[in-house]
C-alpha cells in the first residue's frame, strides 16, 4: 500500500512515467467487458514503461471456439511477462495461471474475487481515515454475485476492520456469516455507526431467477439515500466500485455528496495496479 502511495504521487505529476517495467510485455486479457479495470491496468502498465497489449475478446479466437486453456497456451508462446485476466467464470483465472509461465493478475473472475479492487478500496479508506484497524465497514447490496464483496471481506478482515454485510436474504448467499462478517437485512441496523458505506452494483445480468421483486422495491429498502445514510457516522465515506446505477442502489445526490470518494477510488485504481505490477516485477526473471 505504501508502494501505491508512491504511485499515486507519480500519477499526480505532469510527467507520469517510470521505467520499472521497461522492456516487459503486459497482456490485458479481458473475457468480460470492463471500463475502469481494463483501462487502469493499461495505464498502470504504460506508466511503468511496459509494452501493453489489449486482447479484446469479440475479435479473438475465443469467438472461433478456442478453449480457455488453448488460448493460454497460445499467449504463453508469445512470452509475455505479465498477464492480467478477467473472466466471467469463477476460478478461470486460476486455471489459466496453471498453464502459463508468466505472472498472472486476477482482474475479476465471475462472482469469486477482484483483489485489486479490494486493495484500491483499502487504500482509499486509509488515505481518509489513516487506518483500517477498528473501522466499521458496511458492504451493502448484491453480496451474492459480487466478487468485490468477497475480496473486500477477506482483505478488510485481515487488516483488522469490523466488516458488515447488508442485503436482502436472497442476495446474501448461504453461509455468508461464516466468512467473518456481521450479517444484516436492514440498512438502518446495518449502517448504524458505520465508518464506511460501501455500495455494490445490483448485478441483474448474473441473476438466474427472481431474487428481488423490482428495482423500485430494491431502492426503497436497500438503495443508499440520505435517510438511510443518516444512521451511519456523520463523516462516513461513501464508496462504490462502479459502474453505478443511480436510482437503483444509490441516490444520485448521495453519489455526488462531498463524502463520496467514488471518483478517488478510480484514481487509486491506477495507483494500486501500478504497485501490484511493480511488486510482481521484482520477482520476474532477469536473465
Amino acid at each position, binding site marked *: 500500500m505504501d508502494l501505491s502511495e508512491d504511485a499515486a504521487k507519480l500519477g499526480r505529476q505532469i510527467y507520469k512515467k517510470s521505467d520499472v517495467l521497461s522492456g516487459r510485455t503486459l497482456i490485458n486479457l479481458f473475457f468480460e467487458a470492463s471500463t475502469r479495470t481494463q483501462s487502469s491496468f493499461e495505464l498502470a502498465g504504460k506508466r511503468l514503461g511496459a509494452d501493453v497489449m489489449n486482447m479484446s475478446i469479440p475479435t479473438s479466437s475465443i469467438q472461433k471456439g478456442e478453449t480457455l486453456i488453448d488460448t493460454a497456451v497460445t499467449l504463453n508462446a508469445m512470452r509475455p511477462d505479465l498477464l492480467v485476466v478477467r473472466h466471467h467464470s469463477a476460478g478461470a483465472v486460476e486455471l489459466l495461471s496453471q498453464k502459463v509461465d508468466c505472472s498472472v493478475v486476477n482482474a475479476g473472475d465471475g462472482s469469486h474475487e477482484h483483489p485489486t479492487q479490494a486493495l484500491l478500496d483499502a487504500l482509499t479508506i486509509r488515505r481518509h481515515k489513516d487506518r483500517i484497524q477498528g473501522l466499521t465497514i458496511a458492504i451493502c447490496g448484491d453480496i451474492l454475485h459480487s466478487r468485490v464483496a468477497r475480496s473486500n471481506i477477506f482483505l478488510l478482515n485481515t487488516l483488522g476492520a469490523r466488516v458488515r454485510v447488508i442485503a*436482502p*436474504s*436472497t442476495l446474501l448467499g448461504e453461509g455468508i456469516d461464516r466468512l467473518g462478517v456481521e450479517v444484516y437485512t436492514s440498512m438502518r441496523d446495518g449502517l448504524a455507526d458505520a465508518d464506511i458505506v460501501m455500495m455494490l452494483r445490483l448485478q441483474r445480468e448474473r441473476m438466474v*431467477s*427472481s*431474487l*428481488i*421483486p423490482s428495482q423500485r*422495491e430494491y431502492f*426503497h429498502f436497500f438503495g443508499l439515500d440520505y435517510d438511510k445514510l443518516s444512521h451511519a457516522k456523520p463523516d462516513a465515506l461513501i464508496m462504490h466500485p462502479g459502474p453505478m446505477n443511480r436510482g437503483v442502489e444509490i441516490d444520485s445526490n448521495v453519489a455526488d455528496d462531498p463524502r463520496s470518494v467514488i471518483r478517488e477510488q478510480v484514481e487509486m485504481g491506477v495507483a494500486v495496479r501500478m504497485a501490484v505490477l511493480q511488486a510482481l516485477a521484482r520477482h520476474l526473471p532477469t536473465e
Partner: protein
Amino acid sequence: MLPQDDNQHRHTKRPLALVNARLIDPATGLDAFGGLLIANSVIADLGMHITEGSIEEAETLDCGGRTIAPGLVDMMVFAGEPGHEHRETLATASRAAAAGGVTTILCTPDTDPVIDDVALVDFILRRARDTALVHVHPMAALTKDLLGEDMAEIGLLHDAGAIAFTNGKTSIANARVMRNVLTYAKDFGALVVHHLEDAALTEGGVMNEGEVATRLGLRGVPATAETIMLERDIRLVELTGGRYHAGQISCRASLEVISAAKARGLPVTCGVSINHLTLNENDIGPYRTFFKMKPPLRVEDDRRAMVEGVASGDIDVIVSAHDPCGAGGKRRPFAEAADGAVGLETLLGAALRLYHNGEVTLHRLLEALSANPARLLGLHSGRLAKGAPADLVLIDLEMPWTVEPDQLCSKSKNTPFDGARLEGRPLVTFVAGRPVYHYAA
C-alpha cells in the same frame, strides 16, 4: 337494551356493559360467568363484578347466560373486489361475515386485477373502510399476476398493509421461486400462506380420486397431489427458515406431515376449511356442484383426520374458504362447474357440530376460529382481555336453525349447507365495540 341506532351509539360513545354472560377466551382458557364492558371500541373491563347496574353510565345488554367469545378471524375469504363484483363485494362479504360472527376477514388476492401492487392493497383498504362492516385485511400475491414466476413486491406490499402473502388457489410449482419468496418474505417477517396442489397431478381432476369418482365417471385428484407439495414446502421451510402456513390441508397424510414438521420445531402452521371438517366426497351424491371445491372433499377417514387435527391442535386454523359463485358458475355439468362454496355465515354453526357431537372441545374450536389466526397474523383481536379490540360475538350455543340460502347476506348462495339443520349461532356481532349484526329470529 341494545342500541338500535349504530351511528348514534358511536357518537355518544356511551360504554356498553354485556352482563349475565358466559365469557370464553380461547387465548387464555378463561371460561367463566360474568360481564364485559365495552368503551371507546375496546374491552375496558371484564369479570364477575360487571353486572346489571354496576357501571352507572353504561348501557346494559343482558346476555341471558349465553356465550361471549372473541369475534372469529377468517383467513380465507374471496371478497370479489375488484373484478368479480357480481359474485361478491367487500360490503356484502362483510355483511355475511357479521352475520356469521366473523369480525375480521382476510381477502384473497386472486381478483381481477390480481392484488400484486401497492395501489390495489390501498384500494382494498379504502373500499373496506368505506363499505365494510368488519375488519378487512388484504392478502397480497406472492408472485406477479399469481403466475408463480416473478416475485411480487413483498416488502412494499407488506408496508402498504398486506397482512400475508399467498398464490391464491394455485401452488408455486417452481421450487426455486418458492425458495426465493420464503427467503425474501422472512426479512419482512411476512407470513406465506400456500395453496397445496401439484399442478400436473391435479390437471383435469374435478373431485377426489377414488371409488366415488370412478363410479361417477369423473376424473379424480389424488390426495397425494396435496401431500407432495406440502412435503416439498416443508423442506424449503427447513432450508430458508421462512414463516409458512399451509392454507388448507384436506387429508390424513398431510396432517401427518404437518405434525412431524411441528415436532421438529419448524415455523409451520396449517388451516383446514369448515367444509373438509364437516363434509366428505359422498355428499356430492348425484353430481351436486355446490360440493365441488378446491381441494376436493375427501373420504370420511380424511375428514375424521381433520377433526382429530383440530382437536389435537396440530391444525391451527379453521377457515370458511368463502368462495361465492353465481348460478352461472355452478349450474353446469359437474366437471365444468366452478369450484368453491360460500361459508362465512355457516362457519360457526357448522363448526359447533364438532362440539355438540363431542369431537372437539369448545375451547379448541374457538381457538382455531379466533385466537390462533389472530396470533399468526399479529392482530390484537381474538381474545377477551382488557385493552383488546371489542371484536366480539354473542353466541347461543344451543339454538337450532336451518340454513336457508335465501336468507344469506352473501351475494352468492352456493352453500353446501343448503337446508342443513345446525345447532348454535351468533346472535350479536360487535366490531370495535359497535354492533354490526343482530339476529332477528
